[in-house]
């Protein structure tokens, strides 16, 4: 599958690109090691909680830049609560679809927006710092896309078991050794979870290893 014309347009001429001085909140997700890194900056009206301005920087491929461009368009002018409803599925739809192998880049862009909103809410006493637990792990796993089909591994029922106790994470994945994406998925899980200071050890089990 090729990139759509909408993806190419947003990639070549992205909206809302740059750094926002005096941002009220910002977040960075991804890392150069996984190939993509996005930073988003928010300017929020303290009274109405409307996102008055939003900008992004991306070290990433075309789908990452295009998704960041389109979701910043979507978020601009919305309240924080409205912007929280923006999903990567919606972003993909707006872009006219993405090749399955590229869906993870869209997820990263949306994830960065959600983190920036969450950082704003925490900084302004609108929500507590969430306790890390099994639910946090499952939420993170929902952001991990199986590149062959472009859907997340929870939705695809590839996660058989999630356990968490005192910094120890155990995840059983239903992926066989001949699956070419197994190492990618395991690496991505580690990357997503190791950003939490609570996580001390991650054990990923497969049926045939």
């Amino acid at each position: 599958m090729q990139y759509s014309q909408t993806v190419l347009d947003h990639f070549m001429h992205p909206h809302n690109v740059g750094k926002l001085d005096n941002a009220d909140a910002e977040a960075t997700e991804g890392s150069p090691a996984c190939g993509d890194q996005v930073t988003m900056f928010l300017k929020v009206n303290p009274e109405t909680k409307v996102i008055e301005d939003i900008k992004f920087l991306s070290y990433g491929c075309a789908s990452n830049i295009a998704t960041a461009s389109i979701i910043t368009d979507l978020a601009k002018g919305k309240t924080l609560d409205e912007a929280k409803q923006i999903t990567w599925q919606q972003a993909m739809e707006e872009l006219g679809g993405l090749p399955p192998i590229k869906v993870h880049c869209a997820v990263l862009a949306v994830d960065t927006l959600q983190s920036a909103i969450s950082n704003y809410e925490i900084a302004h006493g609108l929500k507590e710092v969430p306790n890390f637990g099994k639910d946090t792990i499952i939420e993170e796993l929902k952001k991990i896309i199986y590149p062959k089909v472009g859907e997340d591994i929870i939705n695809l029922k590839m996660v058989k078991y999630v356990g968490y106790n005192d910094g120890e994470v155990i995840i059983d994945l239903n992926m066989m050794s001949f699956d070419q994406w197994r190492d990618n998925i395991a690496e991505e899980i580690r990357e997503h979870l190791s950003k939490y200071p609570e996580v001390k050890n991650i054990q990923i089990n497969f049926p045939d290893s």
Partner: protein
Amino acid sequence: MNNHRIYMDNCVTTPVAPEVLEVMKPYFLEKFWFPGTFISTGEETNAAIAQFKEIIAKALNASPEEIHFTSGGTLANNIALKGLIGANANKGRHIIVSLVDYPDLLTNAAYFEKQGFEVSYLEPDSEGWISADKLKEAIRPDTILFMSTVVNHVVGTIQPMADYKKVIETADHKIFWHLDAGQAFGKMHLDVQDLGVDTLSVSAHKIHGPQGIGALFVKKGTKLSQLIHGVTRVDQLQTGGISIALIAGFAKAVEMTFSDLDANISYLRELSNYLLEKLESTIPDIELNGPRGDKRVCHNINVSISYIEGESITMMLDLNGVTVATGSACASQGLKPNYVLMAMGKNHIQSHGSMKFTLSRYNTKEEIDYTVEKLAEITSTLRERSPLYQAIHNKER
């Protein structure tokens, strides 16, 4: 410059030379016969194939009976490697390859491992170069095969063939040596007598010949077990039909490349030096991957452009009519950074931002000027968008 595509990915495949296409035509339309005896059509093809074989043999300083036609370089590699292992499996279970060899060799190595053979993977230095000392250290009494690639397909490093030969020749027992010369053929002098190899593969479509045809050199007296079973039409190693037209095109491409090989090499060397000089003087924070100078093949330039990602760069160049390659994970089918660069000790950022230019005799300095100009614009656009670049840039301000 707007109307024609600038193609700088010639290590993958090259356009067929117009002269090659002309030579092939009658073999599709009129002289399409397979070899045969006692009838004029078959005899004519026999004579033509003998002549084509002679041309290819001469380019490698082999004798014609040592040249076998195959449907491409990958098939040549498979026929040689599986053939050598099949014929010598009773003599030992150990194989040597390097971490940066061509995928044909590495996937075969992985296959042999599954079959119960042990494989040693030699590590390159930071320029992708594998010293003969490493080969020497890896040899064991049960080593039966060393496989290597003359020119690295990613960074253009030329491996020290003469040093390998000394190591192989002075080993206590016979070690078979297979060489993939796909990237080297037509870009440097290759003499199978000097090299001392047992088998060597080359391909037509890397030198402006047609896709789907290659050749395997098998040193006289070397036994290969049969990989492809079937009726012998053109060659006993790759049984079944092989297109005579493609063989004719291959021979023409070889003739054109080797009629003045030194001039071809020096033109490519001049172009790639010019490209590197332009890149280094125009784009800040750029580094060459692989060696500089004569240790590098004449048509390859591979650089890492800091702070930006290769798929974005190649797509933007593509939209400007320029085809190049990148080692970025984002642009790969397996979402993995380039294995050659990683084995050389480069980091993810260096691999993601790597750009590979491989030139042909059809490229010009004007094309290079345009490409570097566009690349400089693209680099500056993408750096404006890059959080990595902005972080460094802001610190400096």
